[in-house]
C-alpha cells in the first residue's frame, strides 16, 4: 500500500484568499440529482445558470453512483391511483399529517414527465432488451418495469446508474457553468442583514483554497440534510452514514439558517444507527434483505424454513405474488415508513415478532435471503437489475459475482443489525419551509431535494428541482442584481480561512467527535428541557473554545473543517427546535420526558425556527398549509404538459 509522505507538497496549486467573481441569473447550490434538475430547468427557461458542487457533478449526491426505484409516480400511464389520493393516504394514515403535501403532490403529478425527460437525456427507463418479457411486473406495451405493487403500479424499476452522467452531460450541452470542487460557505444577503433577500453566496475551492464570490438574482438550495451528528468515527469503515454520502454535512442547512430562513421538522432528527462508523453496518445493499432493492425477497432461517410475510391487514401471505399485489381493500402499496421502528406499514412485511420467535427457537439463526427460491423474473430483477443499478451496487454486483456468488444457487446472509427484524431505521428529514413555488421564507431563495422538508427519493429530488429551478428562473428574469456588501464577504472570508491560519490545534475529526458526544448526552432519543439547555451551553462552549482552534493543513482538510462547523450549527438548530416543541410526538419520533402527552391537539402543527438578528425565534405553521392540492398545483405549474 502506498503510504503518503506527511511532508510532501499538496498536489494542487494553493491560492488561499484569491478571489474569483462569477455572476448568475440563477445560482444552484449542490450538484446532486435535485441540483442538476434545477439547473437544467432554469437553463431551459433562458436563465444564465451556475452550479456550485463541492464534489464531482458526474457522480455527486446520494444518487451519484445510482438508484433503482423511481417512486411516487402515479402519473405514469399504467398507474390506477389518483395523484391526490396517492399524496394524502401515506401522509394522513401513516404520518399523522406530518408530511409535505406540496412536494409530494408536485412529484406525484410531474415525476413521469421528468422520467421521460431523463430518458431523452440518455438514462434507460425501459426493458429495451426484453429481458423480462412476460414478467408480472412488466408492461408489455411500454416495456416499463414496476416495483412493490404490480397491480396499481406507482413505482418503477429503472437503470439509475445512468442518471447523473446523463444530467451532467445535459448541463454541459445547455451551457450551464458547473464549478466542481467548490464548496458554498455562506449566503450573501441584501444589505448584509439576516432575513433579507438572498443575492449570492461565497464559496471556497476544496483543492486550491481559492475564494469565490457569486452574485445571483435567484438561488436554489439543493444540498443534502446533515448526517454524522450523533455518531462519528472515520477510522472503521469510512464516513458512512446510512442514507447519504459523507459529503452530507448540512452545509446548506447551516448557511440558510444563518441567513435567516425558516426551518420545520428539525426536532424530528434522529441518529444514524447503522452507519459504518458504528462498526455494525454492512456494505449498503450488499447483504441479504427483504427490503427496498431486495423487496419482495423470501427470507429463510439456517434450516431453510421460510419466515412468513403478513399483508397490510395482518393476514398471512402464502405466495410471492401476494406480496406484490394488494387486495382491493388494501388500496395500494407504498413505501412509507410508519411511526414504529423498522416498519413500513403500507407494504407487506415479515412477521413483526420475528425476534421473539427466534428467541423461542422457532427460527434458527443465521437468516438468508433465499434468492434461489424466488420466481426467476423476481430473482433477476432483485439481483441483476436492482443490485446493479442502486447506489453502491455496481460494485456489489461485480464483486459478488466475480467471487462466485450465483443468485440461482446461493442464499445471501442477512446481517441487518445483528439479525434484528429486517427493515429500516426511520429516516430523518427537517429542512426549510416553503410555499407552492418551493420558495423559502427568504426572498430570492428556493429549495429542492432534501432542502424541502420531508423530501425523500430521487423522483422527488428531480421533480422538486425542476419545479424550483423553473420558478427561480422566472423570478430572475424580472429583477436586477443587488450590490454585494463587502463587509459581509470579508467577515465570511475571516471565518472560512481561520483553520488554515493555525499551525496546530484541534482537528476536524476531534471536533466532530466532541459534537457527537454532546448530541448523544443531551439530545438523544429521550429529551427534556434541562438536558437540552445544558447541551446548548456545551455546543456554545465548543464553538468558543475548540472551534476557534480548528486547524487545517490543506484545502481538503479545510472543507472538512468547515463541514464540522456547519454540523455544529445544525446541532444547535435541532436543540432549539426540540426545545420549541413542548410536547411529545410519536409521529415525529420525538419524545419529551417533561411533556409526555403524545401529540396533544395544541401541538398538532409544525414548529418552526429561524434566526432574527442573533436570536432564535420559534413559530408554527398549520400541517395542512398546502390547502387545495389540485388548485394550487394548477396555479403554480409552469413545467408540465398541462401548463
Amino acid at each position, binding site marked *: 500500500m502506498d503510504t503518503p509522505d506527511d511532508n510532501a507538497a499538496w498536489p494542487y496549486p494553493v491560492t488561499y484568499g484569491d478571489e474569483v467573481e462569477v455572476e448568475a441569473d440563477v445560482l444552484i447550490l449542490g450538484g446532486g440529482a435535485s441540483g442538476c434538475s434545477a439547473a437544467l430547468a432554469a437553463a431551459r427557461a433562458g436563465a444564465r445558470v451556475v452550479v456550485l458542487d463541492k464534489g464531482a457533478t458526474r457522480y455527486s449526491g446520494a444518487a*451519484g453512483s445510482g438508484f433503482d426505484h423511481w417512486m411516487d409516480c402515479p402519473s405514469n400511464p399504467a398507474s390506477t391511483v389518483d395523484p391526490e389520493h396517492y399524496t394524502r393516504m401515506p401522509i394522513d394514515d401513516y404520518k399523522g399529517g406530518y408530511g409535505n403535501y406540496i412536494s409530494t403532490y408536485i412529484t406525484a403529478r410531474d415525476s413521469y414527465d421528468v422520467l421521460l425527460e431523463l430518458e431523452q437525456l440518455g438514462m434507460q427507463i425501459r426493458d429495451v432488451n426484453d*429481458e423480462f418479457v412476460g414478467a408480472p411486473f412488466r408492461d408489455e406495451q411500454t416495456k416499463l418495469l414496476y416495483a412493490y405493487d404490480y397491480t396499481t403500479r406507482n413505482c418503477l424499476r429503472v437503470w439509475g446508474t445512468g442518471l447523473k452522467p446523463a444530467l451532467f452531460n445535459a448541463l454541459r450541452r445547455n451551457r450551464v457553468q458547473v464549478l466542481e470542487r467548490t464548496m458554498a460557505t455562506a449566503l450573501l444577503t441584501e444589505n448584509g442583514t439576516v432575513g433579507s433577500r438572498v443575492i449570492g453566496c461565497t464559496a471556497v475551492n476544496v483543492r486550491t483554497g481559492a475564494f469565490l464570490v457569486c452574485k445571483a438574482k435567484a438561488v436554489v438550495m439543493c444540498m443534502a440534510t446533515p448526517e454524522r451528528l450523533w455518531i462519528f468515527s472515520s477510522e472503521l469503515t469510512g464516513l458512512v452514514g446510512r442514507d447519504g454520502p459523507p459529503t452530507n454535512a448540512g452545509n446548506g442547512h447551516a448557511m440558510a439558517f444563518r441567513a435567516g430562513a425558516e426551518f420545520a421538522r428539525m426536532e424530528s432528527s434522529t441518529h444514524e444507527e447503522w452507519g459504518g462508523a458504528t462498526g455494525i453496518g454492512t456494505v449498503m445493499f450488499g447483504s441479504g434483505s427483504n427490503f427496498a432493492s431486495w423487496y419482495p425477497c423470501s427470507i429463510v432461517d439456517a434450516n431453510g424454513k421460510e419466515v412468513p410475510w403478513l399483508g397490510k391487514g395482518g393476514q398471512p401471505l402464502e405466495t410471492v405474488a401476494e406480496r406484490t399485489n394488494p387486495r382491493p381493500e388494501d388500496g395500494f402499496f407504498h413505501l412509507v415508513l410508519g411511526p414504529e421502528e423498522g416498519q413500513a406499514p403500507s407494504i407487506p412485511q415479515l412477521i413483526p415478532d420475528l425476534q421473539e420467535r427466534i428467541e423461542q427457537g422457532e427460527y434458527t439463526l443465521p437468516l438468508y435471503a433465499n434468492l434461489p427460491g424466488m420466481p426467476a423474473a423476481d430473482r433477476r430483477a432483485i439481483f441483476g437489475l436492482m443490485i446493479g443499478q442502486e447506489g453502491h451496487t455496481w460494485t456489489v454486483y461485480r464483486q459478488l459475482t466475480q467471487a462466485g456468488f450465483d443468485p440461482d444457487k446461493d442464499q445471501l446472509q442477512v446481517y441487518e443489525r445483528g439479525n434484528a427484524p429486517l427493515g429500516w431505521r426511520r429516516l430523518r428529514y427537517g429542512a426549510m419551509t416553503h410555499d407552492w413555488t418551493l420558495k423559502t421564507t427568504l426572498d430570492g431563495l428556493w429549495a429542492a431535494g432534501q432542502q424541502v422538508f420531508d423530501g425523500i427519493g430521487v423522483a422527488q429530488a428531480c421533480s422538486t428541482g425542476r419545479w424550483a429551478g423553473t420558478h427561480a428562473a422566472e423570478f430572475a428574469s424580472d429583477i436586477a442584481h443587488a450590490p454585494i456588501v463587502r463587509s459581509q464577504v470579508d467577515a465570511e472570508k475571516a471565518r472560512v480561512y481561520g483553520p488554515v491560519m493555525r499551525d496546530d490545534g484541534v482537528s476536524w475529526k476531534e471536533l466532530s467527535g466532541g459534537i457527537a458526544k454532546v448530541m448523544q448526552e443531551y439530545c438523544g432519543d429521550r429529551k427534556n428541557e434541562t438536558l437540552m439547555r445544558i447541551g446548548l451551553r456545551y455546543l456554545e462552549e465548543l464553538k468558543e473554545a475548540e472551534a476557534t482552534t480548528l486547524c487545517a493543513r490543506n484545502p481538503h482538510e479545510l472543507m472538512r473543517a468547515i463541514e464540522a462547523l456547519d454540523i455544529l450549527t445544525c446541532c444547535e438548530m435541532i436543540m432549539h427546535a426540540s426545545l420549541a416543541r413542548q410536547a411529545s410526538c410519536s409521529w415525529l419520533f420525538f419524545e419529551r420526558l417533561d411533556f409526555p402527552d403524545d401529540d396533544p391537539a395544541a401541538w398538532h402543527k409544525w414548529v418552526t425556527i429561524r434566526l432574527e438578528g442573533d436570536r432564535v425565534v420559534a413559530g408554527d405553521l398549520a400541517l395542512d398549509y398546502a390547502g387545495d392540492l389540485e388548485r394550487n398545483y394548477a396555479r403554480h405549474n409552469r413545467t408540465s404538459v398541462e401548463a
Partner: protein
Amino acid sequence: MDQSSPPGLQGLADRKATRGPNLVTPNQPIVFDEEACTGCNLCIEACPIDVLVPQASPGAVPLVLYPDECWYCGCCEMRCPEYDAGAIRINFPLMQRARWKRRATGEHFRLGMKNPPPPNTRPPV
C-alpha cells in the same frame, strides 16, 4: 541450543522494525494494479469525496490519500476505462464482506475467501 529457523522464517533476525506510519484506518478501500492502470486519473476526477489525489510523476497510479473518507460508492470503478483489465478494485473492509450459503449443498462462502468458487460470469441487466 540449536537455533535453526523453522520453515518460512529464514532471515527473521534481519527483519527491520519501523515506526509506521500509524494509518488512519485499518482499511484499504481502493486497490490499483500498477500494471493495468494507465495513470489517466479519471478516477480522481470521478470521486465525489476527493479520496484520491494525483502523484507527482505522470502515469503513476493515483494516491489514496483519504482512505478513511471513502464510502465505497464505486464511482472510481465505474469511470475506469481499464476496469476489465483489473486496474482498480474497491476492497470492502474485512469486517463488512458478504457471506453466503449454497442452497443445494450447504457449503459456506465469503467474499475474499482463500479458495473461492469459479466466477459467475452473467452480466447485470
